[in-house]
């Protein structure tokens, strides 16, 4: 139980910040800067967690644990701790949330106190989902993600925000309730809600309840109907967080709960799930290729990426898991970065329609460089960290059947097509009708919150093994997996 | 030795006889409560039911509960019932349920289903586990033991119960006074 306070701090710090900002009579700027400071401190604490986490097979799988009884009679406890993937995902969440908050400070969101309190609350909820080691606690954080998102999209969103929030809410609630049912049945029948103590289960129905929540939140084709609407209507940075961070909560749920704790049902249901992921991968890529606006491209590419990550997870072997976790980190950084760029372009031109943009590279070297860099990493150019992730994923899924890898390879080509289309539509050719000369290049403060994301990606490109090497020792932790982990 | 067995079995037979009488009274009075059309008779039948239940409690060695049953329930509560019925007089009579016949069938179905399910559980699923009651000491159902439990282990339940009773008393008073004021107003209007 060493250093469990770090985990608690990571959860409680943003929560405390959120409460303080919501209650204290702060000015807009003060609220924003305070939120930014809190999230920077959060990153620092994550660094502490990273250095005190030991990647060693002889140390328990879950580390930095803290545990307090909550409802003792029912076997519910406040039990938190880090697994390897959770550690990296938490870091990704902390970094991207900080960037998103900085973006919001820069564009001066209205009702600042409510806004920043919601963002910090969202941070707490996301971190909580990653570190929860108790099913009910997991559920509490899972639902806690929904509330700030609902508010953030519903209040600060675009003109169609009400419809977007309604769809998002209904879809995710439907999935979550099935998960709640599963959690209750599982917890009551075992007498404990603890994830670690509970060990593995073989119940198909409970497994499917969890999967229902994850496929909607991720989303996996065909449960993505809320996605294009929500991503188009949400404020840019919230859309980025939604696609970059919140979706990873679902992917992490797949990995840590659905797969690692339900090995037999996973084994039985992996083919249908892989089929859905494959369809989503191709489908998202094709639609991204024809999407008429910037957000559409990024939104559908996100659908495709989640399909790919699911591929890696349900390859159910080490290469697949490692690739998927690496790709989750990559996609979080890429997605938030791209959505923020989309937001900045929209601010300058007033539109996201591809046929009204163009020619922005001329005289705007910073914008061109950043968009180009993010774009080519997003399309997984060989040598980039996204390539490393995809390569591992497809290596992993190859052992399940060459066909899956062929689908993945086709998707790589499609990714090149839609990303280049996006880049060219914004940067190249002659100037679009919505682009006038006072659409300025990226300014220094804007670079200050986008460049760190790009820098993270470049560092990861040089050393993707930072994530994959120190990631999972699932076979040791979950002997039941040996049955189908080659 | 054999005389002891005989005595024991004689005691056993006696217990059976008493149980049988009490159980029969219980069932019969229960049916009577439901089927009388005059609430006055229903209430009287319920008093009989409660009394025979008290006998069953005694057979289960729950002396204090049996006493409370007779004193509090059959005595105090039912007297209140009878007062109200007497106060309301003939207006208390209401016919049996009308409404759609579907409703009646469903009601009977549900009640019978509950009964059958419990009996099935008793008969099939739990038979063996219920036939070995624990050994108990003499003070199992004594007032002393109940009092000790109430003031130690179950103090919270005790306190909450008292609060519930208090609230109910307040509620009764409010309802009564409210009704009286309404009556006064109506009288004033006339």
């Amino acid at each position, binding site marked *: 139980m060493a250093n469990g306070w770090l985990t608690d701090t990571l959860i409680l710090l943003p929560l405390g910040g959120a409460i303080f900002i919501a209650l204290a009579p702060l000015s807009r700027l003060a609220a924003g800067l305070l939120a930014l400071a809190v999230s920077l401190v959060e990153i620092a604490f994550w660094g502490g967690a990273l250095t005190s986490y030991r990647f060693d097979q002889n140390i328990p799988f879950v580390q930095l644990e803290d545990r307090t009884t909550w409802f003792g009679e029912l076997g519910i406890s406040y039990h938190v701790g880090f697994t390897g993937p959770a550690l990296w995902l938490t870091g990704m969440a902390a970094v991207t949330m900080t960037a998103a908050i900085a973006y919001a400070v820069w564009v001066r969101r209205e009702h600042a106190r409510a806004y920043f309190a919601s963002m910090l609350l969202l941070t707490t909820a996301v971190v909580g989902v990653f570190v929860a080691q108790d099913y009910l606690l997991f559920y509490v954080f899972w639902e806690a993600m929904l509330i700030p998102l609902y508010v953030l999209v519903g209040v600060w969103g675009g003109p169609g925000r009400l419809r977007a929030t*309604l*769809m998002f809410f209904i879809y995710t609630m439907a999935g979550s309730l099935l998960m709640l049912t599963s959690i209750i049945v599982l917890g009551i029948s075992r007498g404990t809600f603890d994830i670690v103590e509970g060990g593995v289960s073989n119940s198909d129905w409970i497994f499917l309840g969890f999967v229902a929540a994850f496929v909607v939140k991720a989303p996996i084709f065909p449960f*993505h*109907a809320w996605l*294009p609407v929500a991503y188009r209507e949400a404020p840019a940075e919230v859309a980025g967080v939604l696609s970059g961070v919140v979706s990873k909560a679902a992917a992490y749920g797949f990995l840590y709960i659905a797969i690692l704790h339900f090995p037999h049902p996973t084994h039985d249901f992996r083919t249908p799930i892989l089929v859905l992921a494959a369809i989503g991968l191709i*489908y998202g890529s*094709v*639609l991204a290729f*024809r999407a008429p606006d910037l957000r559409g491209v990024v939104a559908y590419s996100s659908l495709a990426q989640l399909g790919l990550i699911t591929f890696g997870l349900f390859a159910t*072997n*080490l*290469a697949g*898991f*490692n690739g998927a976790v690496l790709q989750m980190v990559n996609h979080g950084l890429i997605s938030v970065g791209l959505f923020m760029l989309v937001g900045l372009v929209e601010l300058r031109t007033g539109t996201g329609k591809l046929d009204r943009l163009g*020619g922005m*590279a*001329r005289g705007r*070297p910073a914008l061109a*460089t950043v968009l*180009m860099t993010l774009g*080519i990493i997003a399309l997984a*150019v*060989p*040598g980039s960290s996204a390539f490393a992730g995809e*390569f591992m994923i*497809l*290596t*992993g899924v*190859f*052992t399940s059947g*060459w066909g899956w*890898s062929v689908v993945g*390879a*086709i998707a*790589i*080509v499609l990714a*090149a*097509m839609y990303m*280049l*289309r996006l880049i*060219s539509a914004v*940067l*190249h*050719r*002659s100037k679009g009708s919505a682009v006038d000369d006072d659409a300025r290049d990226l300014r220094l403060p804007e670079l200050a919150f986008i460049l760190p994301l790009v820098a993270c990606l470049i560092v990861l490109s*040089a*050393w*993707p*093994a930072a994530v*994959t*090497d120190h990631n999972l020792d699932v076979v040791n932790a979950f002997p039941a997996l040996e049955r189908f982990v080659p | 030795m054999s005389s002891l067995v005989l005595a024991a079995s004689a005691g056993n037979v006696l217990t059976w006889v008493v149980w049988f009488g009490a159980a029969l009274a219980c069932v019969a009075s229960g049916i009577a409560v439901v089927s009388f059309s005059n609430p006055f008779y229903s209430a009287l039948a319920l008093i009989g039911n409660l009394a025979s239940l008290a006998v069953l409690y005694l057979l289960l060695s729950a002396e204090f509960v049996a006493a409370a049953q007779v004193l509090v329930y059959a005595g105090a509560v039912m007297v209140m019932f009878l007062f109200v019925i007497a106060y309301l007089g003939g207006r208390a009579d209401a016919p049996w*349920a009308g409404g759609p016949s579907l*409703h009646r069938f*469903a*009601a009977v179905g*549900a009640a019978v*289903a*509950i009964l059958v*399910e419990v009996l*099935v559980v008793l008969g099939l699923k739990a038979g063996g586990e219920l036939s070995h009651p624990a050994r108990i000491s003499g003070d199992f159902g004594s007032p002393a033991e109940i009092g000790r439990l109430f003031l130690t282990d179950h103090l919270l339940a005790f306190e909450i119960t008292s609060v519930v009773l208090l609230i109910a008393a307040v509620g009764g008073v409010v309802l009564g006074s409210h009704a009286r004021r309404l009556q006064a107003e109506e009288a004033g209007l006339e």
Partner: protein
Amino acid sequence: MTEITTSWICLFSPLVAVIVIALGGNRFSRRAAGVIATGSVALSFAAAVVAFATMLTRAPGNRSHLSTAWTWLSAGNLHFGLSVLVDPLSVFMMLVVSGVGGLIVLYSIGYMHGDDEERRYFAYMAMFVFSMLLLVQGGNLILLLSGWGLVGLSSYLLIGFWHERPAAIAAAKKAFVMNAIGDATFALALFLLIAKTGTLDYGLAFSKAHGLSQTVLILIALGLLGGAVAKSAQLPLHTWLPDAMEGPTPVSALIHAATMVTAGVYLIARTAPIFQLASVVQDTAAALGAVTLVMAGLIALVQTDIKRVIAYSTMSQIGYMFLGVGLGAYASGMFHLLTHAFFKALLFLAAGVVIHALAGEQDIRKMGGLRGLMPKTYAVFLVGALSLAGIPPFSGFFSKDPIIAATLERGGAFGYVMFVLAIGGTFLTGLYTFRLVFRVFHGDRDRFVDETFDTHHGEGPLVMLLPVGVLAIGATLAGWLQVPGGWHGVSSWLQPVAAPILETTNTQEAIASIVSVVLGLAGAGIAWWIYIARRRPAPAAVPAFERKFWFDELYDALFHRPAVTTAKVLYALVEGPLVGGSMAGIAEAVRGLGTGTGRLQTGLVRTYALALAASLAVLAVVFLAVR
């Protein structure tokens, strides 16, 4: 280990230049960016020379070293290091890439002078050199693939450098997507290799490959060949290369002639053990090369854009290299790669001088009689043309003929068909090359030339002419590294890495040389007859050649339009109903639920009690059944 240290320096020197230029931004002058890029590539070249010299001192068996900096990617038992392999083949390529690259980057300082985005250009150029060095130095196949993808990226960036031209952007995207297809098949081959051998390290994978089934080997080799074909613009993934001429001319010289497009040849030589085990695929490579070399030669006959003629010529020459490595004459293929890098870069740069002097005009119908105006350019262009046409004593002669001889050594129906195609190619080469020479430099001067040629400006600054001169010397002398029947500098150097699987005899060499020289001269003569003697302005139009055998139309119909149609259909039939429909469905369901529940609310206490009792009965059954 001197050569290891210098290899790392060689690899990372251009990357440092990229970072410096990118971070420096406006703080550097444009010229400084060019100097930094040139300097970094020159440093790479120096490092490569040192590595080469060090290795010369070692015994042939002790020239291969692997150096790993750190684990790049890992999972379970899979570990891929960030490592460089220093062996004769990689040093050979390092010398070509950094040597020719350095000259071309230097040339660019003059060529790109005045462009307002010079810094970006030089950053991209240095980026390309880094990527190409990563490709040839990478110590395992995943790093090779990384370099492979990064050169594709650099190529994309540089083709689309003038990003306001729609044609340039379209060409860049086409090149990238075509290359992505190759990357994908390459990656699939690697997945199969990992699944079967568990490693991507060259040595280990090759030794384990011996135990694999023929099907697996063929599939792996096919995947690798797919990558090679796409990168090297061979049939059927060649259509991007001519379009890539939209980029600046030095880019065409460096990427689309001297280095990147020959990466496919390098790949086949590097993975020779796998191709040898899957000989069907190796023959396929040879056949694709042979068909490409003829077809590209035919198309080159009718092109009117000076750079496109050279581009098709590049395709054709890479066809020869494929033929060589496909037949197992690895050293011959690599040797042709070397000489081709010299003379083709020379031709491009000389063409660039012409284009530069004519204000960017590339249409050969508007040129003519430039010999008098640009004598130096004419001289070096002629050197390049003679070398390309395989006329002794220029380098193309020495490197092309061993490949033709190899077809004879191969023998059989396959070998003779290859032989006929190859010598047919030499005839076409002579024809289109000298068509270009005569059309551009001889004959009457076009009115356009008189209007645009700037006599003060002349043939361009020294920074442009100097690299051209060096390349001309290289194109003249490089052939003497290996003389049939004489000495075998290249073959014996590459022997430890890729030992040839066939040895040609002196007779075969002689037959090949005589036939090819005669046919090459015949081609040149016919060109003279048509363009000088008869003064025909252009050859008769051949639709099949002009439309480039309809490959673009075919791909458009096969891939692009179906993709667009599929997307439209998916939007209309799936996405619309799913997104809009699910919303309507949810609303309808909620309304129905509300109405239904409303009907249940009778307000009768007894109904609620009944519901309670019924639920109790049902729940009891559930508990009984589930427990």
